[in-house]
């Protein structure tokens, strides 16, 4: 019976233990449920917060994008408004330079041009900051002579220095020695900024520009640039802030000296983009020194020289095109008209896009210059419409006063072929014309059969080149006669000293001029000489040069005769 008692006891204890366990289980289940509820609530809360934040962020972003867009539009418009009259100033100055000027007039005009350039630079400050900071600044490299660059810069500031009773001194590398490959405009901008600051902040004493070559190698040369002055100088605090935007050294400065406060900031960034670091040393009351070093790629002197000469010959080669100029601003119209008239290029003018489309419908044009912002219909729309009816893909050149990347993209999308930024120089306009000039443009029924080129010359080619434009032909023949003696002298000198490399370069240079006067066979001889020297084949080279030389001399009378005949034909026509 004890066993039964024992078992009963055990069972009771087990039952009670089970009941305890059940209670504990219940309690835990409730705990779990409550914890879960809290979690769900917390989650919903978090999701709400996220939704709200995302909405807020979207609104903020939209606002920021709108503001940025508005700023870009404003900048583009401002840029256009300001550059348009500047275009007129610069353009007209160039035209004046081309005319007959007496003595000091040319000097004064140079200063007007330079000042207009400086003004344009100041205006561009604001646009540039925005471009650099948004990463849209594009480097435009070209070959230029650093020595000439330096002395031109110095000249630009000579008047300003004189007006402020300051001495403008310099230590600049010599000209015709260092040809570099870099962004000339940026370097110009930096040094102009430094020089104008120096003059601005110096009441008496000296401003000095230094450009030295510090390290030379095969591919790169390193140059040290410095602008120093004996001006008001800066203390430590001012020096630290000097490159930050919108902060001129202190409020006093801004009131007394004016300026946007952006110049040094832009210069500092441009210097960095060119691979250098703009630094300053200064002592309050004594003066300041701004300096930086740049490692610049060398350009070969030959490339540089031949580019210069090519310009001369290319101007002679301009061919006739029928051009449509679409531009609403009357000054710009006049500027282009004068140039096109001078180059004897027939053209028509349309005041806006709508008129342009109408004119295009009823006329044949070989080239169109299209301004972008115009009333009634703008350049993009006009281009799109012209492209729709245009079977021969006429080149349409956008004339743009604003350099904003997005406008360029829009231009390309609407079908424009290329850009010409206003204000442009006559050289820039002429090179665009040459690019699209078709040498196959036949003169048509204007051919005057009363004049024939001499059969002793390549008459067929001459007719093709000049058609019935005897004035033009006469110009070319005269120019040839003016040039040929000197060029031949250079050639013979090189040949005499057996400097065949330079012989090759010279023959290459003068080769084109012979075909212009129908002496195609002489061009061919030049070609042969050039090719042989290139392959280091000097057999008979001296004889060939002799032959070339004598042929040129022998044909001179023929050319003179031809030029005379052309002149009299012209006189008859008049």
């Amino acid at each position, binding site marked *: 019976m004890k066993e039964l008692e*024992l078992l009963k006891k055990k069972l009771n*204890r087990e039952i*009670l*233990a*089970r009941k*305890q*366990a059940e209670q*504990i289980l219940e309690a835990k289940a409730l705990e779990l449920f409550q914890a879960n509820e809290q979690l769900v609530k917390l989650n919903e809360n978090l999701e709400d917060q996220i939704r709200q934040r995302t909405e807020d962020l979207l609104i903020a972003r939209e606002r920021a994008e709108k503001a940025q867009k508005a700023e870009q539009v404003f900048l583009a418009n401002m840029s256009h408004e300001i550059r348009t009259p500047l275009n007129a100033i610069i353009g007209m100055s160039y035209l004046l330079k081309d005319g007959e000027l007496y003595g000091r007039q040319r000097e004064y005009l140079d200063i007007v041009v330079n000042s207009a350039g400086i003004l344009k630079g100041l205006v561009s400050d604001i646009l540039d900051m925005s471009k650099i900071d948004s990463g849209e600044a594009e480097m435009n490299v070209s070959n230029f002579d650093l020595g000439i660059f330096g002395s031109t810069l110095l000249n630009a500031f000579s008047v300003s220095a004189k007006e402020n009773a300051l001495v403008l001194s310099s230590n600049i590398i010599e000209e015709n020695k260092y040809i570099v490959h870099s962004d000339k405009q940026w370097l110009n901008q930096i040094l102009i900024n430094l020089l104008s600051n120096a003059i601005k902040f110096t009441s008496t004493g000296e401003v000095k520009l230094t450009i030295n070559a510090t390290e030379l190698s095969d591919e790169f040369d390193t140059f040290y640039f410095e602008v120093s002055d004996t001006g008001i100088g800066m203390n430590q605090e001012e020096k630290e802030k000097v490159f930050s935007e919108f902060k001129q050294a202190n409020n006093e400065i801004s009131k007394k000296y004016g300026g946007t406060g952006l110049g040094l900031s832009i210069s500092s960034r441009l210097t960095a983009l060119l691979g250098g670091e703009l630094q300053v040393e200064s002592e309050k009351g004594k003066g300041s020194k701004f300096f930086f070093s740049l490692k610049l790629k060398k350009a070969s002197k030959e490339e540089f020289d031949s580019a210069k000469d090519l310009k001369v010959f290319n101007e002679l080669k301009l061919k006739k095109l029928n051009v449509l100029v679409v531009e609403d601003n009357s000054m710009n119209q006049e500027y282009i008209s004068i140039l096109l008239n001078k180059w004897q290029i027939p053209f028509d003018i349309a005041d806006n896009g709508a008129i342009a489309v109408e004119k295009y419908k009823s006329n044949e044009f070989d080239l169109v210059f299209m301004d972008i912002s115009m009333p009634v219909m703008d350049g993009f729309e006009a281009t799109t419409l012209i492209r729709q009816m245009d079977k021969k893909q006429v080149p349409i050149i956008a004339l743009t006063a604003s350099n904003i990347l997005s406008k360029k993209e829009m231009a390309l999308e609407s079908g424009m072929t290329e850009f010409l930024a206003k204000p442009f120089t006559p050289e820039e306009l002429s090179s665009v014309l040459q690019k699209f000039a078709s040498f196959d443009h036949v003169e048509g029924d204007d051919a005057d059969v009363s004049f024939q080129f001499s059969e002793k010359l390549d008459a067929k080619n001459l007719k093709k080149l000049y058609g019935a434009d005897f004035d033009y032909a006469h110009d070319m023949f005269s120019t040839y006669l003016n040039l040929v003696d000197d060029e031949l002298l250079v050639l013979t000198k090189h040949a005499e000293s057996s400097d065949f490399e330079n012989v090759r370069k010279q023959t290459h240079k003068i080769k084109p001029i012979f075909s212009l006067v129908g002496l195609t066979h002489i061009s061919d001889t030049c070609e042969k000489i050039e090719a042989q020297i290139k392959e280091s084949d000097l057999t008979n080279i001296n004889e060939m040069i002799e032959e070339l030389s004598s042929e040129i001399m022998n044909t001179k009378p023929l050319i003179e005769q031809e030029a005379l005949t052309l002149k009299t034909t012209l006189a008859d026509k008049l």
Partner: protein
Amino acid sequence: MKGIVFTEFLDMVEKKFGYEVVDQIITESKLESDGVYTAVGTYPHSEVVQLLMNLSDAVKIDPAALLKEFGKYLFDTFLAGYPQFFSAVDNAFAFLHSIDKHIHVEVLKLYPDATLPKFHSEETADGTMIMTYNSERKMAALAEGLIEKSIAHYNENCTIISENLKEDGTEVKFTIQRIKS
């Protein structure tokens, strides 16, 4: 103290000495719980001390020896209930090290009110482990039983020497040495 200690203890007593002894020690002890224990419950530590003492009287075995025996018994319960702790490592010393660093941490997550002993383990350069036991409950003998069986589980041979760092048994040092075979 967690209920599982009580339920397993009484299980062991029943298996080794019969339910009559279980009933006896429950009746002899003054237990608030009346000897009714569920593994998921929590009960005063003093009750297990009473039960242990009364057991020692009843079966005439030294309480420390009984505790150590209980430790070895408890090991099997732990192995069956929480195999993941044992398979996490592959040797005895690593396991012993994981008790304080890992196992007790996990236990506290589920049962924040659990009262567990504190262990500090250190391995010396010559391959000896020094493990220090620290607890107000003074059940180092239980720990020793568990340690012994753990080492055997990994098929290793070690000698275990225990030494009271404090007279009252709240701090004990175990020196565990691998036997070079």
